[in-house]
């Protein structure tokens, strides 16, 4: 075990994957000698050479197109998109190519070995284009997996899982926690399964669900609620697609209430999918409407960032409304 922040945990996962398998290649904008604008790829080029860790020209559609070809060839690409806000130029390559490659070829070819890493989320004064949480766009793409860790331990275990997984994975890293979140991380390899949620705390009055950087906000709100005698069950979804409906449904069947929170805008956000599914599965158990505490349906603002964010106070108020419905 070693104390690591999330960047060090990501770096440790990449080093371990590249050491174990010479087909693993890491590339993107500024990831080479410089080690990435957040330093997640520090020292990789020195350790593994310029052929396996390299800078690409500044073209997101090119990075993912290139990665698709590399994956189809049999290599194991780990491509970086500098900010999730800039993944949209590669949207066509991801939606129409990466995700459909295996299906359209009848399983003859696939991009299963591809992992796309990208920093996401707000709270860093990033304004419109350094704050977005685009996971819901990608949750609508059959063939993709979407994964979001909440701390350094998760980051390493889930990233190693994503790299090994035989399906293309979008791995979204909460950049607000890159240096802020520090924890014990095993130096050896370990994996955390994809598609599995984690119940962090048992409770009986309400189920609280979030992912990534929003988990610590949720925990803070839960603590306030607990102080008022409300027993909260806290779940980290971890995988957006495919998501772990059974764990969430089991929890809601016990508590009778569900609150989902994410930074991304409300309309069309992934909370909508969860709410609809749980409403179908748990209709007779629900004692109050499923509540969503999300970002506003606006672009992500700079000056009003604090007001935009679904913070612990907004969640706390929503928990009380839900419980006292």
């Amino acid at each position: 075990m070693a104390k690591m922040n999330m960047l060090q945990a990501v770096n440790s996962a990449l080093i371990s994957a590249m050491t174990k398998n010479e087909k693993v290649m890491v590339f993107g904008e500024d990831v080479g000698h410089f080690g990435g604008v957040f330093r997640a790829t520090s020292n990789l080029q020195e350790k593994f050479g310029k052929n396996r860790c390299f800078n690409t020209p500044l073209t997101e559609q090119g990075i993912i197109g290139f990665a698709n070809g590399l994956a189809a060839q049999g290599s194991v690409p780990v491509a970086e998109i500098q900010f999730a806000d800039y993944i949209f130029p590669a949207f066509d390559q991801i939606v129409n190519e990466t995700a459909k490659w295996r299906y359209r070829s009848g399983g003859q070819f696939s991009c299963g070995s591809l992992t796309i890493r990208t920093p996401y989320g707000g709270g860093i004064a990033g304004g419109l284009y350094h704050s977005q949480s685009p996971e819901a766009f990608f949750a609508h793409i059959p063939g993709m997996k979407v994964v979001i860790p909440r701390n350094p331990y998760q980051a390493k275990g889930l990233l190693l899982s994503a790299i090994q997984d035989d399906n293309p994975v979008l791995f979204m890293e909460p950049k607000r926690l890159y240096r802020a979140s520090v924890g014990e991380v095993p130096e050896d390899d370990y994996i955390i399964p994809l598609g599995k949620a984690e119940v962090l705390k048992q409770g009986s009055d309400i189920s609280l669900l979030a992912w990534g950087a929003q988990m610590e906000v949720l925990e803070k709100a839960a603590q306030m609620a607990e102080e008022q005698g409300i027993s909260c069950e806290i779940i980290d979804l971890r995988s957006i697609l495919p998501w772990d409906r059974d764990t969430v449904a089991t929890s809601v069947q016990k508590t009778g209430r569900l609150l989902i929170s994410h930074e991304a805008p409300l309309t069309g956000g992934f909370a909508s999918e969860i709410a609809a599914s749980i409403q179908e599965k748990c209709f007779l158990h629900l004692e109050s409407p499923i509540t969503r505490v999300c970002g506003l349906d606006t672009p992500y603002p700079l000056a009003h960032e604090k007001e935009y964010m679904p913070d612990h106070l907004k969640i706390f108020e929503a928990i009380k409304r839900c419980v006292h419905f």
Partner: protein
Amino acid sequence: MKDRNHLSNIGLSHQVNVISNGLLDIPMLQLLQADGVPHAQATLPDMTQQKAEKILGTMQFIRILDERMVAAQRQGRISFYLACTGEEASTVGSAAALEPQDMIMSQYREQGALAYRGFTTEQFMDQMFSNEKEPNKGRQMPIHYGVKELNFMTISSPLGTQIPQASGYAYGQKMAGLDAVTICYFGEGAASEGDFHAGLNMAAVLKCPVIFLCRNNGYAISTPSEEQFAGDGIASRGIGYGVKTIRVDGNDVMAVYAATQKAREIALAEQCPVLIEAMTYRLAAHSTSDDPSGYRSKDEEERWRAKDPVQRFAAWMQSKGWFDEEQNKLFLEQSRQEVLSELKRVEKVPICKIDEIITDVYDVPPWHLKEQLAELKAHIAKYPDAYPKTSGRL
């Protein structure tokens, strides 16, 4: 840290210098004249009689297949078709210059390359009828071929996407130390997509052994090339990216063969990309959903019919004493018969069982797909007459 000087190759000027189009003079390689007689100054590549016969036979077979399948679409027997009439030389000639281990990534009008690799009449039919024997499991529209054994990457409809993919594929081949390159086909219309820019720039910077072959056939559906670009075709762009570039007469199979041979040699030896622009003409309609009489003249088509690549090559073979009129007639008749009988046979093969609707989305179907399939099967079982192709085999 290394000092860099990005001005080091730039000369100085002391007047305002405006560089305009046309300064680069990129000629078109032509070895055989329209009548099949080699140009006096031309050096022909080595070609055995056997190879020449395979090239001509493949071009002729594809023309027969195209004619027959366009008719089959008109009869409503298949849903869609794309002919490559007039462009047989650019695909067959280039495929003939490759090795079987080279990966082919194509756009959709390259059935000539696939046939040259050994794709059979039956395989063509299986794909067009989307049946259960087809390796893509009937999921894609007709002409979206793909076959792993022949190193022919499955085609997709979005234009230009295969260009940066080919760069990545070739980089993987290089890293694996393979004696192989990737060839990437696309039309001049697709070259306007952002992926063209991304793919060529990445291949040049990352030194990928890939051959980009642009079929510049004058039209992207109804859009003539003068509404597609204002520069000197596609070839002049290669130079801008630092990609070695060859422009070739796409109706001269000998020239395409020579150019591709040279490109493969450079790509492997120097581990770098090469761009070939093949100047040709889309004699066919864009697809069975298109009628070119709405946007171009019969005269124009006739002028290009006179430059027929198949006749040009046959004439050259004749001059070598490698072409027997009677034997060729027999071959054409046999090919027509084979296409017809395979069509009749294959159109009766059933489509895949409904279970295949959820396989290959992921390596293993996750819970939600299994749930959706179970619901679907129960529904089909309830209304079997509404789903006749699958209800009998639930």
